[in-house]
């Protein structure tokens, strides 16, 4: 089961990197979403993946009767999902605003903050 997850995480990461290397902001945006989800799956796998065994300790024992998955990573993922979702919302608005104000969604053409051929500082007094 973990092997399947590892492969899935690998596919997610490669798709995310491919999209983030694009110059179009919308693709980069989708890439970051995939990137965040790849990490969530990775953390999920780090808690080990086991089917249908709730991590509940039966009465009279100190440890679970059978091997169970660690539930803590799921709490970590929940935190990470909330954070990455809010970041996605912000980036979505930012990219849309950039498209409106700068008139482009291609990263290479966004040169307002760093204009090309800026004059060099004076060489003499």
């Amino acid at each position, binding site marked *: 089961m973990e092997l399947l997850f590892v492969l899935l995480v690998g596919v997610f990461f490669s798709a995310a990197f491919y999209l983030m290397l694009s110059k179009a902001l919308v693709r980069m945006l989708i890439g*970051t979403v995939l990137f965040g989800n790849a990490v969530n799956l990775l953390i999920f796998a780090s808690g080990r993946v086991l089917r249908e065994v709730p991590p509940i300790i039966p009465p009279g024992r100190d440890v679970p009767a059978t091997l169970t998955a660690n539930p803590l990573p799921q709490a970590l993922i929940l935190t990470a999902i909330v954070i990455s979702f809010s970041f996605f919302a912000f980036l979505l608005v930012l990219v849309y605003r950039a498209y409106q104000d700068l008139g482009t969604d291609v990263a290479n053409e966004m040169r307002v903050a*760093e204009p090309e051929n800026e004059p060099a500082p004076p060489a003499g007094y």
Partner: protein
Amino acid sequence: MAATDVDLSAALMLTPVPAADWLVVLPVALPLLAGAVLTMLRKSVRLQAAFAIPVLALLVLLDGLLLFRVLENGPVTMVMGRWLPPFGIAFTADLAGTLFALAASVVALAGAVHALADIGDGGRRYGFYPFLLLLVAGVTGAFLTGDIFNLYVWFEVLLISSFGLIVLGSEARQIDGAIKYAFLNLVATTLFLIATGYLYGLFGTLNMADIAVKAAERRADLPTMTLAALYLLAFAMKAAAFPVHFWLPASYHTPRVTVSALFAGLLTKVGVYALLRTLVMLFPVEREELSFVIALVGAATMLTGALGALGQSDIRRLLGYTVISGIGVMLAGLALGSPGGIGGAIFYALHSMVVMTALYMAAGLAGRLAGTFDLNRLGGLHARSALFSGLALVLFFAVSGLPPFSGFWPKVMVTKAALDIGAWWLAGAILLSGFLTTIAFARVFLLAFWRPAGQDLPAAAMPAASLVPLAVLTGLAVLFGLFPQALLATVQAAAQGLADPAAYIRSVFPGVT
């Protein structure tokens, strides 16, 4: 609740937390609460500054008290919900973290005062002060937390607040800068999360003291080197180290000057702090293995920073490259790993927080007085105000690492530590970058201050609200340049505490020896 016969003492602290221990979380809780209150009072523009500045002054006081307590009793720990570590989230204030937190609060207070002159009603209605307080909460939380996943959460808190600050004003160039800043920083924190996910899979714990213990025991049969390398990449990106520094010069000159000043003082230093915490305290053996890579990255960072600064005609962009150059010196200290190296890195970080903030404020004032940030057109500032010119000259000396100001001592420490182990090329890179920085700033002084004004300067007033924080921060640079002994001893003790975390671990696990 029938099962009351369960022995809770195995998982919970049954005695109430001593009142003095609350001091560990107060520096985070206070700005967080105040930020929430100010968000609700967003419409009352007049109240914003009147509320935020006293809160930040109180924060400086709290961080100062915490520092005194840590100096006297060693690291202090408080766990959330009274869960025994490693179950609950622990906040552990040690000397290094507390020093960083105190410097951050001073910088934030200076920024809040400077904003009185720089951020108008529009910016305040947009939420400058709530964002500032939440940013400070995130930064302080990152410095004081003792839990690595919690560190990630504080990184995100400070990141989302900085997004709010960087687009304050919504000009086209700010949006452009914000896009690059936002995407690249998001990738960096996600890399941090990947490393933390692997770390939990390997060690089954997130408490830093617990990780330090377990890493020492089980280093041989776990891929800890991968973790250390991932943390190095993630935090080097946050700290803007070469070759992952490109987000900084693309964005730091775009927001309001106060915001740039706060970013330069607070954000990259959190990355440096996280590097020190993970690589020195948690993975010292791996840091030793990586030290050559870190040293190369450090040398490249300081030289690209200094050369980049030489090539800029906009003084705010010049300062952005200077921030990067300073990060290189801190990385060199981290690479050396000796008490002098780590202590020098901490000292340089504290110096850089104060001086870079002051330099951005000075650049803002220069821009206000001359009506431009362009070195080709700036001029006549010395004739306009000799006091401002003097303050700027002190800062230029301090940032170039010339005596008798605060930049000199950490550079001496790191250079000496490099020469002690025969890394002459690293010492040479530090001196060369200092030399290039001196040229860059000498040229700024020559052109912007000494050169007669080309045209009549606009009749702009010099507001006290921007001159006072500038003067106070410059005063700190002079003070710690002239009387460095106390700080030198403290940063060396802080470096010792990071390299040998026995006291840190004892504070989290009091029963274990």
